[in-house]
């Protein structure tokens, strides 16, 4: 029995108003800038309407960045989910409760690190001469050099491995906790039917967890959009443009190479439209 109270209004209105202002002002302004031809070097500008957008579709580096971003998204999301489900199931099967707690604590550590730190840690580790991660290769081949970050074919995967190191291990903990919330009866029943361990998970437990696993994947898809820190520190988009994602390219157009703020903003606006449409659609489907 709750009396009518002013609480919902006084508690919600200011916060929502501030959130709306803080999010809508930059968003609308991003669109305004994208329709102009601002550059960092001069304060003068004029309206060019959609010519930035038209230029983008003729810009091969932009199209490359779209492709790299899509690859990044697919590689990191798939690898994270596979690793998380694999390790989560393994912990559920063979680790004692005490050991589970230890693993859970260890697996949360990488995701807490600032991405800049994680990127540096692995940049050293991947160093061709002194890196700890390339050491086994040097040892086996007798001192041959393997430089994953400066080869176009491996650079994206090397950077993606850091992302998966952070999120895959963390999600493994969540998968384990999800498995622990399941009722034991269906698993027992499957066991009585002589189902093998992997069959129990493939046909019983994981299908039961379909909804939360899809939500988890949704979260990872959103977080994968934030690839900038890792790429900026580890490769700066290189070698060439092999790891140049959209945000990296927008940043270098806007700030490093030419100071074309409007052009960068047009790119950011396209990203924003694409992600908002995609994720709104997915979210409605997840909720349904």
């Amino acid at each position: 029995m709750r009396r009518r109270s002013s609480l919902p209004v006084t508690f919600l209105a200011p916060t929502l108003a501030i959130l709306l202002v803080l999010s809508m002002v930059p968003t609308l302004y991003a669109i305004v800038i994208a329709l102009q031809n601002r550059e960092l070097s001069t304060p003068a500008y004029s309206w060019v309407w959609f010519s930035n957008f038209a230029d983008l579709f003729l810009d091969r580096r932009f199209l490359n960045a779209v492709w790299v971003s899509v690859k990044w998204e697919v590689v990191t999301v798939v690898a994270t989910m596979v690793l998380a489900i694999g390790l989560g199931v393994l912990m559920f099967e063979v680790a004692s409760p005490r050991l589970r707690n230890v693993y859970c604590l260890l697996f949360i550590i990488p995701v807490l690190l600032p991405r800049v730190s994680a990127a540096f840690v692995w940049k050293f580790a991947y160093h061709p001469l002194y890196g700890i991660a390339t050491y086994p290769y040097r040892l086996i081949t007798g001192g041959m050099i393997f430089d994953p970050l400066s080869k176009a074919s491996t650079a994206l995967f090397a950077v993606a491995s850091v992302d998966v190191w952070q999120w895959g291990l963390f999600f493994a903990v969540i998968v384990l906790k999800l498995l622990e919330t399941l009722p034991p009866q269906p698993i027992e029943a499957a066991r009585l039917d002589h189902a093998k361990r992997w069959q129990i998970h493939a046909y019983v437990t994981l299908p039961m967890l379909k909804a939360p696993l899809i939500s988890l994947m949704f979260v990872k898809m959103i977080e994968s959009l934030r690839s900038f820190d890792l790429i900026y520190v580890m490769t700066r988009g290189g070698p060439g443009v092999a790891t140049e994602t959209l945000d990296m390219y927008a940043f270098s157009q806007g700030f490093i190479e030419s100071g074309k703020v409007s052009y960068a903003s047009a790119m950011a606006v396209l990203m924003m439209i694409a992600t908002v449409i995609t994720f709104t659609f997915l979210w409605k489907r997840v909720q349904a």
Partner: protein
Amino acid sequence: MRPYPIRLGRLIAKAILALAGFLAVFPLVWTALNALKNNVDIITRVPRLVFTPTLANISYILGRDSVLTGLYNSVVACGSAVLIGVALGLPAAYAVARYPNRFAGDIQFFVLSLRFLPPVAVAIPLMVIWLQVGLYDTLPALIVTYSLLTISVIMWLAIPSFQGVPREIEEAAFVDGYGAYSVFWRIALPVAARSLAGAIAFSFVLVWNEFLIALMLSSSNAKTLPIVASELSQQGMNVPWGILNASVVLLSLPPLLFLGVLSGFLNSVFRQKKS
């Protein structure tokens, strides 16, 4: 029936898990060790486990003005943004959790959708705006921008925490004559405190780790620690590896302090789900 292959399977599974646990922390431990090494002990083709430790890197880092300024900026910017997030996010979350109206779903979706916005799309216009207002490269600009992150994240995570407070306690307080506000202050907040602490810690880690916005909104005065650390690596050809490792360790320590709180938060979220 076939005990042998099963036992072998379990052994392999345990080995994989142990390897994963090792890989989770070893790179970080190695970085911490490198922070204690002289450059000669780092630049070796065969990694050195035995070396004479030195505190030179750490004292160099802690003695540099740029690092100390970065640390100060990070603490002030993140601390203030989290406080603002708490002051505005917690009450709003409570209102959504306890006074459901027909917009509750839309409000939750709006708050989540702020997370979809690409950081570049927010940072570019904000840079232009702050330049025009004359607040570019200042802490207030960074604090306001970060508040958008902290308010939305705290609100998003606190809604389930408040929903987890047993309704009966609140109803009983109403019967005892408490008003809506004192129920929030005296009942809901203290009862939900532990899982709220997790939400707040999470928002702190999020802004502490933030890089892109800080990079675009600061040029010299308002640089946060991640920016300073990333710049140390660009000191010419002769990379001071030890110093770089020490700065990575310094940058990573604050989030790791919250390890306990955050893993407790995770546990409480899933215990709720189970019941």
